[in-house]
């Protein structure tokens, strides 16, 4: 060193300063977040404009999910591999104007539940009498999710049940019961699926069906012939289940056309969603894959073209577990939220918020991940998430549930997990090489996120403050105005835990409007219909979804928060048929039923 003690002291101070930088960033990040302490309801209402109360028991819902028990060859890592199956979908199956709830169970012999809304704040399980309860019979696999769509346009929502096992299609007999029509429909004998969505990909007015495989379809998880069933890479795996696109032929039958239309992937799909991302009138298909990159299939009405890399979403392999669309900046464009894994000190993938870039040529799209900039990046071992305006302030908020395996609080499996997941494919791909879990947790007992959108590009987590304090292993999230109060309630399906119903109370000064759409030339469920609402100089686009999030489906009704004293200009509906309809003279705090004009 050429300089004396003073210079060396300055250098040492500089070095110490560098070492202190992480704590400075941590403090800044903490300051950006809301207080972690729970507020009472009055304070929460005053500060955030809403509060949530878990009311499942009061609502007569005592559903507890039971997880699957797979082949004994997987005994040592059973909690890890048998960690999904809790799902929730919202449907008004009897067309009484009140949302009902369908939830899946995943133990052999367990029953799924269909909670009929009794209009008085309570629900009643009618799954057995309707014929959609006893669907987890020995030899048929167990439920992983359910999505509803009126595939025959008779006005009643039909049920597609996906399983690690035999997928099932149930026809809704005008709300009085369900008839199993799986064989007539031509569905395969076995798919180990975790995601499915209804959408009319070719615009023929009939709902088609996408199903994404997770484990390969030739694997019977209860009768394994080999333990080599695991992904061959933690982030580049392509040895998962195949993808299916069932084209609705209109006579109760479906034709599998995935290869014909350009969908060919064996990534491990966990979530999918469809939305018209480019304004072409065709719904594009977004798939979040575990153990790899997400895929985006652009739809030209006849064929799909995978453009993950071109659009920027096909790099950075992570553990995709969710697809949710939301116009978070009120610009008439969808952003896409994909959840991943973040575990402090081990693995920081970060969730992705894919925001479309401005200025791309017409018909093309490019995304940038702004999850970090907007504050929705770190959510633990994240699973289901949904966009919805929880406080009716006119900006879409984001509800995220998380947590993987909650066993022994004091012992973690992460060390063992990281050992194997970084290894060669021959090691990671064989379940017998995975160390025994032995009661250890893997990202268990995690706190949830309720990210409020400030409308200026930042989300702030208020989960604890507004009453979301559960630490169950959350899987699916669905939003619905369950009690027709003009507030979005939250239903959360938890793995090996209770079904949670968070009733939402919103400051009445913040107003809302809801739309129930029904197609005529388009599919009757109106899945794929887009409504752009114009008010107070703002615009927000929402679409009727045939399934989104993780193993979930929101209510078909579109809910818009409007803020205080809103002046509504108009609503413009673009139906899947291509027809555009403008609705004027709208008033806040009303539910409008709109039928596609003939």
């Amino acid at each position, binding site marked *: *060193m*050429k*300089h004396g003690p003073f*210079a*060396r002291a300055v*250098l*040492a101070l*500089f*070095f110490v300063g*560098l*070492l202190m*930088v*992480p*704590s400075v*960033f*941590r403090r800044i990040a903490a300051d950006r977040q809301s207080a972690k302490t729970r507020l009472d309801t009055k304070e929460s209402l005053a500060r955030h404009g809403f509060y949530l109360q878990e009311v499942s028991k009061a609502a007569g819902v005592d559903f507890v999910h039971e997880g699957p028990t797979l082949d004994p060859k997987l005994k040592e890592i059973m909690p890890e591999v048998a960690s999904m199956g809790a799902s929730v979908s919202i449907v008004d199956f009897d067309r009484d104007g009140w949302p009902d709830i369908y939830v899946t169970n995943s133990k052999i012999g367990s029953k799924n539940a269909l909670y009929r809304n009794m209009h008085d704040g309570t629900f009643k399980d009618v799954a057995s009498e309707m014929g959609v309860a006893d669907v987890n019979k020995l030899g048929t696999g167990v439920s992983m999710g359910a999505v509803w769509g009126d595939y025959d346009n008779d006005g009643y929502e039909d049920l597609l049940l996906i399983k690690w096992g035999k997928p099932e299609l149930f026809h809704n007999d005008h709300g009085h019961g369900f008839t199993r029509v799986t064989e007539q429909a031509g569905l395969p004998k076995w798919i180990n699926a975790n995601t499915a969505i209804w959408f009319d990909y070719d615009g023929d007015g009939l709902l088609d069906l996408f199903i994404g495989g997770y484990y390969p379809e030739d694997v019977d998880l209860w009768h394994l012939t080999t333990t080599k069933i695991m992904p*061959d*890479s*933690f*982030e*580049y795996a392509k040895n998962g289940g195949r993808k299916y696109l069932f084209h609705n032929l209109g006579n109760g039958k479906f034709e599998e056309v995935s290869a014909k239309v350009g969908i060919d992937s064996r990534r491990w799909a966990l979530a999918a969603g469809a939305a018209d991302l480019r304004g072409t009138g065709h719904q594009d298909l977004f798939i979040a894959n575990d153990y790899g*990159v997400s895929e985006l299939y652009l739809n030209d009405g006849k064929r799909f073209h995978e453009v993950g890399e071109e659009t920027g979403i*096909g*790099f*950075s*392999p992570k553990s995709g577990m969710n697809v949710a669309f939301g116009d978070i900046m009120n610009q008439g464009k969808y952003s896409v939220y994909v959840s991943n894994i973040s575990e*402090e*000190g*081990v*693995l*920081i*993938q*970060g969730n992705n918020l894919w925001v479309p870039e401005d200025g791309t040529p017409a018909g093309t799209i490019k995304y940038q991940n702004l*999850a*970090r900039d907007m504050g929705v*990046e*770190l959510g633990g071992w994240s699973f289901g998430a949904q966009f919805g305006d929880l406080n009716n302030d006119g900006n879409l908020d984001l509800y995220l549930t998380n947590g993987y395996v909650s066993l022994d609080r004091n012992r*973690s499996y*992460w*060390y*063992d997990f*990281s*050992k*194997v*997941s*970084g*290894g*060669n*494919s*021959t*090691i*990671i791909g*064989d379940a*017998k*090489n*995975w*160390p*025994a879990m032995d009661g250890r947790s893997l990202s268990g007992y995690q706190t949830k996120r309720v990210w409020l959108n400030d409308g200026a590009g930042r989300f702030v987590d208020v989960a604890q403050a507004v009453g979301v304090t559960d630490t169950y292993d959350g899987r699916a999230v669905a939003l619905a105005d369950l009690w027709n109060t003009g507030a979005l309630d939250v239903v959360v399906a938890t793995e090996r835990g209770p079904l949670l119903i968070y009733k939402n109370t919103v400051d009445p000064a913040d107003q809302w409007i809801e739309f129930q759409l029904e197609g005529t030339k388009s599919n009757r469920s109106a899945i794929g219909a887009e409504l752009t609402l114009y008010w107070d100089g703002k615009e927000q686009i929402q679409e009727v979804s045939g399934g989104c999030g993780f193993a979930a489906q929101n209510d078909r009704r579109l809910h818009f928060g409007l803020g205080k004293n809103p002046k509504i200009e108009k609503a413009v509906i673009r139906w899947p048929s291509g027809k555009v309809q403008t609705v004027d003279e709208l008033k806040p705090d009303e539910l409008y039923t709109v039928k596609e004009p003939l």
Partner: protein
Amino acid sequence: MNEQIAAPNIALENPRGGNRLLALLDSRYTPPVFITLILLAGHLSFGMLESYQKTLLAIAASIATELVLSRFFMGKWPHLASAYITGISVGILVRSPAYWPFALGAMISITSKYVLRYKGRHLWNPSNLGISALLFLAGDIVASLSIQWGNFLLPLLVIWALGAVIIWRLRRFHITGTYVVFFLLFAVLRSWITGSPVLSEISPITGPEYQLFIFFMITDPKTTVKSRRGQCAVAFAVALVEMVMRLDRVIYAPFYALFFVGPIALLVEMWWQSRRVQVAAATA
């Protein structure tokens, strides 16, 4: 990682054909070229880099810090090969959704060379120290590369073969070899102690993190002892400490093991040398 690469004492006058390649391999540019090739191969085949901007940021921060500190404290413009390696190593091994850890890790690494010195030598392998500091101090936002480099056999074999040849040409293969042999032996021992499958204990060394660790980090001439036997002993000690840490379920055991063993080995060597000098002086 290899901050200063010692050129082997091999005469290669007027190199031709294959010898030109050997000359290149023997130069101080070999490790930078090799690590760049690894980076490019990993990124082009697997899209390994979450963001090339982050890697470039780490390289830029590393080089800028080296330039400033060397000019100011050493009074000379530095050769930038080592700073480049440090930057690129931080860029590969640090995983974070944020940008700042890449710059900070590189700056801590380089600055440590000028601060943490004893008798004119820096004690820690700079990138080992920088990465260890980040993992310890910023675990909420930083992890290390452990999975994001494909898990397939071919790239693994190519990198191991190329790395082995280059390290052998640089006459440091015995360090890598010793470490690998003892890692495998200790893996079997850990499996016997914990009851975990043997392959689960061997698994980490088949990952990319270890490829960088065994070819670049533990072989760094500036922060390894001088004698060949001593180098083997240190490699053994790193593997041993790592095993103990792994029994305590420490995820980043190899980084931390080198963090502790490396400087201690250097201090012991310095003490031993000064003692020999004293004894020699007393005898004279």
